[in-house]
């Protein structure tokens, strides 16, 4: 009854099926390719789509980075890393530039990605039209007919109601001028990073059984009107309290002693890099 786990958990047949769906996704940018999503040893909705992509792609020589909400040490990132490493023995890294596979939940790293890297995003709700249409059968037809009036209307209604668009993370994007896509719940701040990305971006939704992709150098535009342009999150001109950087996505924290709001880099490995390089400059200058 005992069973030993195969390299990267899956049997080779499963990996092949997932890779085949991935290739189709790359060939049709933004189109949601259905696939036979497997039950995984982590819970549905905790990154099983991303994990299935990672496991189907990873080889022994790959270096993997996993982030959750910008942090490499976040509980779910740690858990996923542990599982992949236990079944593959691959090298892990926190450094964005050293990784060739990056699985992420809700963030695109601050360091620009390169053509040698693949970014795998975990997606809870791949269907950008779900807020306007509950039925899967109907949304599929709307994509086929290039009918995105529902998505536009959603933005228009927000403008009528609140005087501006009020989308949160997961602001819908047009990919290659054809398919409207849910960019995974990355903050609006990260949407522009998808546009003409050098790295291949793969998106996996395990529970909803869909794989889709943004191939390198593909146009990705956030839905917006000319007179109500797309806007990213603002942090009131604040900078990170640790490294001082201002043009990155920041976390809002409560200082327990003073009760005041403070800001800090959300991408923890980026923040560490900034601090290290400052330290280095400090050291060299003092020696000089």
């Amino acid at each position, binding site marked *: *009854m005992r069973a030993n786990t195969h390299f990267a958990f899956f049997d080779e047949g499963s990996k092949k099926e997932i890779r085949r769906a991935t290739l189709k996704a790359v060939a049709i940018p933004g189109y949601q390719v259905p696939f036979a999503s497997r039950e995984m040893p982590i*819970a549905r909705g905790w990154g099983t789509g991303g994990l299935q992509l990672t496991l189907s792609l990873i080889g022994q020589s790959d270096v993997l980075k996993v982030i959750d909400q910008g942090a490499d040490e976040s*509980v779910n990132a740690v858990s996923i890393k*542990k599982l992949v490493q236990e079944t593959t023995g691959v090298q892990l890294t926190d450094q964005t530039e050293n990784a060739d596979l990056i699985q992420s939940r809700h963030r695109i790293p601050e360091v620009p990605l390169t053509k040698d890297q693949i970014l795998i995003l975990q997606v809870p709700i791949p269907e950008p039209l779900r807020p306007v249409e*509950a039925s899967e059968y109907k949304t599929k037809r709307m994509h086929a007919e290039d009918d995105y009036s529902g998505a536009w209307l959603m933005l228009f209604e927000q403008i009528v*109601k*609140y005087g501006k668009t*009020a989308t949160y993370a997961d602001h819908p994007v047009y990919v290659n001028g054809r398919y409207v896509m849910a960019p995974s719940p990355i903050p609006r701040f990260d949407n522009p990073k998808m546009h003409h990305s050098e790295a291949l971006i793969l998106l996996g939704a395990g529970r909803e059984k869909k794989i889709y992709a943004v191939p390198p150098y593909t146009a990705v535009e956030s839905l917006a009107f000319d007179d109500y342009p797309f806007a990213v999150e603002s942090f009131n001109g604040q900078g990170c309290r640790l490294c001082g950087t201002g043009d990155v996505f920041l*976390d809002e924290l409560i200082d327990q002693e003073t009760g005041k709001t403070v800001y800090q880099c959300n991408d923890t490995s980026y923040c560490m890099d900034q601090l290290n390089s400052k330290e280095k400059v400090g050291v060299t200058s003092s020696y000089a």
Partner: protein
Amino acid sequence: MGYVPVKGGTQAIDASIKRLTYERLKGQEILEIKTILSTMGSMVDQVMSESSLYSPELAALAIKQGEGSMEEAVFLMRAHRSTLPRHYYSETVEVETMLVERRISASFKDIPGGQLLGATYDYTHRLLDFGMMEENAEVNRKWLQDYRDSLSVIQSGQEVVYFPKVVDYLREEGLFETFEPDNAQPTDVTKQSLQFPTTRSARLQVMTRGQTGAVTSFGYASLRGYGEVHPTVGEVRVGKVPIYTAHPNKTDLDPEDQFYIGEIRITEVESFVPVTVKNTNNEDALEFEIGYGVCYGQNETKAIAMSILDQCLEHPNTEFPTHDEEFVLLHIDSVESTGFISHLKLPHYVTFQSKLDSIRQVKKEGTAVES
């Protein structure tokens, strides 16, 4: 002996029940109540929650008797509950005084007081542990000893500190409305039948005793698109809260005179849901509201799903089934739903005969028209 001609039913039932006993005993193993209590904690919690009766021992007995069927165990407990008089109502439980075992927030990284993971399956990998096939009491004892030794070096704080509620921080900022506590006597759904439209206290009671799977499914449906509520979990906490009752003969409400009657372990959830509200200028504005979920024992999925449904039902919307209180509240009860579904196994000879007759008549007339 035939079943259909009614005669012989008594003997058939006797034989069936004997056979049931045989099925439970034939393996010649005895499951002790204490084994269930110490190793089947989440099942015990679910049974207590769905049967609205806080008694781990009785829940364990019900699980044993029902051979692990949740449906049977809850049924047994609810039936037993009917035999118990209700002596008192407790004072309002102050959840702020919970002795917290686990407390997490999915909204903020650094919540005041910090995150406390406690015991959870969340970060385990669901790989079958083949080692459990031959567990060894000696090895387990050693593990326990080592674990306790490792704990003894940790110094505990001198005083008991209560964790602040995450929502209080956002209330200060005006992102949540502050409400006066509603101290009206809650509806008791076990003493009064549900009338629609119902009250929030009745809704919360029906949901907290709802079938775990059903509450989860409806909450999930709202998340997926058949509802309008998709919250961020502000805070999940698991721990024990003390229960007090007032002195039965005294009318003054001095808390000093209250009786401490024990504690219960609960899971409590506050979900944050963005909603549209009218501001002072009668314009639409965005604000957060709280979805609330609470249930006996540790059952976080159910409590979170309940918090979603609480918000759904606070905002009725005929477009979505999960926002319809009759649809949700009348279908999530374990005893009611499983009972009526299983009644289909009862003989329906008369009604079916009547249906058959109708269909035959219609078919006959149909052909007559055609010819």
